[in-house]
């Protein structure tokens, strides 16, 4: 591949684990802002102050400043990395508690996951307050099939005398769950492996979906079909149908103007920089 990658030196093994052939961190090449010709797009979502930016930095080698206060990342940041011969573009989305309401940062995050059609969405989760974080996870899983949960701040979990059963969580959510301690780089190799498995289709996700309210089950099904027929390029017709039923004015407007179809087409054709372009439009 290109010469820039050779410049990045492999991590020096300083623990017995890292010398083991099963340890994959050596495959990680941090590309910084060099993101040309990516194979996969990965979005990084999560509640504020869960360590998204720390995960972002440890994957891309960039040194975006992190701070222990919510709202630190106000705009999305992009970076690149290569893992096991494949190039990834990573988008650090602003931290949000939900994707339902209408603040700017929630819209940026939601629109990217919905219209940017990332190959994998990594949701960084504060394991100490799992319940609140799962609200966002469930909403993300409504939108996308391909997600990996990064169960971060595992040292805090221990410190508080708690235990989180990540296998049960993975079974319940239907997507891979990786416990990490991003500040110290623990769990990052496992996270990379999970991301590449999902991106390449080696791991099949069966994400947990909320039962739709009984009164609307049929309406939702019909509407989903209609949206899918009208806009074949659209990544997730069910979510669009749900939002329409909920009365989301912006989505209704996008359907009326046909803008929503353009978004689907633009992005499925995978022209580099399109994702950024569309996102810019949405931010304006």
């Amino acid at each position, binding site marked *: 591949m290109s010469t820039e990658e050779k410049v990045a030196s492999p991590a020096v093994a300083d623990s017995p684990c890292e010398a083991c052939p099963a340890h994959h961190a050596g495959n990680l090449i941090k590309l910084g802002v060099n993101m040309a010709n990516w194979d996969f797009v990965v979005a990084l979502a999560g509640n504020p*102050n869960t360590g998204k930016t720390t995960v972002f930095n440890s994957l891309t080698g960039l*040194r975006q400043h992190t701070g222990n*206060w919510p709202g630190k990342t106000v705009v999305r940041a992009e970076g690149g990395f290569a893992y096991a011969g494949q190039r990834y573009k990573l988008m650090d989305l602003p931290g949000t508690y939900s994707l339902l309401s209408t603040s700017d940062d929630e819209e940026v995050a939601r629109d990217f996951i919905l219209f940017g059609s990332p190959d994998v969405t990594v949701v960084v989760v504060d394991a100490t307050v799992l319940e609140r974080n799962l609200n966002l996870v469930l909403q993300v899983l409504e939108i996308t099939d391909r997600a990996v949960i990064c169960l971060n701040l595992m040292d805090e979990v221990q410190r508080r005398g708690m235990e989180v059963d990540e296998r049960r969580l993975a079974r319940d*959510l239907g997507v891979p769950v990786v416990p990490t301690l991003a500040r110290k780089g623990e769990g990052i190799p496992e996270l990379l492996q999970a991301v590449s498995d999902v991106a390449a289709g080696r791991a099949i996700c069966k994400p947990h979906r909320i039962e739709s309210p009984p009164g*609307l089950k049929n309406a939702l099904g019909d509407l989903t079909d*209609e949206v899918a027929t009208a806009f074949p390029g659209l990544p997730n017709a069910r979510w669009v149908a749900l939002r329409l039923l909920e*009365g989301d004015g912006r989505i209704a407007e996008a359907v009326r103007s*046909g803008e929503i179809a353009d978004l689907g087409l633009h992005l499925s054709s995978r022209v580099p920089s399109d994702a950024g372009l569309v996102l810019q439009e949405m931010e304006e």
Partner: protein
Amino acid sequence: MTQLQEQSEKILERVGAARFEAGSNFHDELVESLYTEAARIADRAVTRKGERGRFDTDRTIDRLVTSRWLGFPLMLLMLTVVFWLTIEGANYPSAMLATLLVDMIHPLLNSGADSIGVPWWLSGLLIDGVYLAMAWVISVMLPPMAIFFPLFTLLEDFGYLPRVAFNLDGLFRRAGAHGKQALTMAMGFGCNAAAIVSTRVIDSPRERLIAIITNNFALCNGRWPTQILVATIFIGGLVPAHLAGLVSAAAVVGVAVLGIFLTFVVSWGLSRTVLKGEASAFSLELPPYRPPQILRTIYTSVIDRTLIVLWRAVVFAIPAGAVIWLASNIQVADKSLAEHFIDFTGPFGTFVGLNGVILLAYVVAIPANEIVIPTILMLTVLTARITGTGDGAGVMFEPDSVAANADVLRAGGWTLLTAVNLMLFSLVHNPCSTTIYTIYQETKSAKWTTVASLLPVVMGFVMCFVVAQVWRWFS
């Protein structure tokens, strides 16, 4: 009508009908089922042991730092300690850098230029103007920044900033502003331009405008060196030497606190007049305290903040050095351009308790506040016709010590009043050009950009004038 439009209209019609059938509580039902599911899944995955020992430590610290009585004193104490460490720690490396860059390299460059026959005006412009301006900015700014930024970043990583926001929230709400303005204000202590970008965390446009307009009252790093140097010379000089560092630090904290106070007053004024409205509620998470990663923090704050800010200062010092040298060396009717300006504005400067040199310095320093002090020193030497210091007309120089700086300023007719007013004016004057540009970028409004730029200058002159009148009344 195209086929697609027909389909879209049909979909929207169907949506309307279904929504009518389901009633309006569909949104609530959906949110409720999300929350129930989240609780159920979390419950299955998490086990808690009874023991929650160290979590209580967090609670104890929180009770202290956000307490009604101790919260503010602890905040001031922490600020004072940070500045005291900065002032005490920066002195020695600053002097070393000045010796190297100014006393050793500068004469070498000059004699080198002479030996290869560079004309005097070219070597004057490049070496006495541009090079010295850069050398001064590096020796004055690098040490304090290299100490201040890591300390501040450590506090930030530890999780202290949200507690500051928590403490100040009530005051901001009473001023009709958003509580998150405390966070953007704290960013402003580093750099106003960056802080204005960070006001994006405030959703309401009204409150965001207030945060943008008042951010300039947070003393930025370009102004810390001015405050620290003037406080060290004039305020620290009032007390015995062993107390000087602490008293100077307290004076700087005093100015910073005045800035915070002005933030509240101006926010209050704006939200009662041109930006009327209620403060919006928001939820603020007090994140757990996390042990800062000391080495990484030092590395990133040196790379991300110190070097980037320093680079910006150097870039702006290059044209400023040239302008100062030219203004001091181009003679019109027996006087240099600089002297013309200083003589012309002098009466007004004295009227408000400043002087013509300071006014000219603030015009030259519009691109970057960092170069105020070097400009003032150079111009004072020029107009007071001090001999035996520096290298000649229009040379930006670095006298060897704080004492030499003090001699220059006293010879230029400076008093304690001039010093106090300079500290006040440095706090309350127009934002630097980068910040003004950023304000325009963020607000896209020429009107609000003008307000944000001119309001502080006018306030600054009024404030200095009042202080001068009171001062003269009593003395």
